[in-house]
């Protein structure tokens, strides 16, 4: 499955991009079943989690093995829930090398998330890549260019753009950062997983 397929599809959609529409397209592209649940989490520590499990003896989420389960904190506002779900859905595109599938990689991932000074493992790279993918699918490129012009001429504020895309304002500057196009281009040219 290639991120390019999803990205191209998003270009045909109106904003705000609907979570249900993305899930439907991802199912079509990947055939991987996805279940999304809302659950209590300590918001200081975690807003969301992605898990794909293989053991049918442990059906914590009443989902068969192979299902991708996305857990969202039940304290999130709708715009935060949207971006967290988008980012976690993007792990369907993880390269097998980026999967966290043993105790050592899990420990490294937690340490890496807590300590920005350590070198990046493939698993941490995946977290960053998925954040950029999530941003890229929030806003079709033609609209992003248009919004960028309004932002430059100050006819639209970041708050206005956040409202239009229904994402947290904190993420808006990243959509217009100097490295946005380069980062997205890298993701679009990555081989399929």
């Amino acid at each position, binding site marked *: 499955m290639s991120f390019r397929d999803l990205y191209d599809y998003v270009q045909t959609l109106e904003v705000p991009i609907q*979570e*249900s529409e993305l*899930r439907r397209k991802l*199912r079509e592209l990947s055939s991987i*079943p*996805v*279940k*999304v*649940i*809302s*659950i*209590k*989490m*300590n*918001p*200081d*520590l*975690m*807003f*969301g*989690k*992605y*898990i*794909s*499990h*293989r*053991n049918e*003896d*442990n059906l*914590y*989420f009443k*989902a*068969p093995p192979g*299902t991708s389960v996305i*857990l*969202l*904190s*039940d304290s999130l506002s709708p715009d935060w829930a949207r971006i*967290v*779900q988008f*980012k*976690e859905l993007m*792990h369907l595109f*993880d390269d097998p090398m980026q*999967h*966290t*599938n*043993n*105790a050592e990689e*899990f*420990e490294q*991932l*937690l*340490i890496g*998330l*807590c300590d920005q000074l350590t070198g990046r493992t493939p*698993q941490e790279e*995946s*977290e960053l890549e*998925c954040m950029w993918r999530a941003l890229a699918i929030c806003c079709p490129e033609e609209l992003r260019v248009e919004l960028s012009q309004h932002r430059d001429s100050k006819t639209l504020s970041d708050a206005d753009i956040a409202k239009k895309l229904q994402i947290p304002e904190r993420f808006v500057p990243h959509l217009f950062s100097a490295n946005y196009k380069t980062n997205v281009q890298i993701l679009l040219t990555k081989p399929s997983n």
Partner: protein
Amino acid sequence: MATNLKQAQDLLFGEGGLGVANVKFFPGNKRNVTAEEVAAEVVAVFERAERGEYKVVADIGE
């Protein structure tokens, strides 16, 4: 005494555990957290899930 990290590792990857093929996180508000704190939250979330304390937002095959 098992650490939170060890407990989370056993739950996710140990014998009789979930057999996790991939797990990832969206970090929370706090920046200066430790792996032990996050691991404790991982375990706590699974305990809530086991008790069925969650709502389904979207199900398979919707």
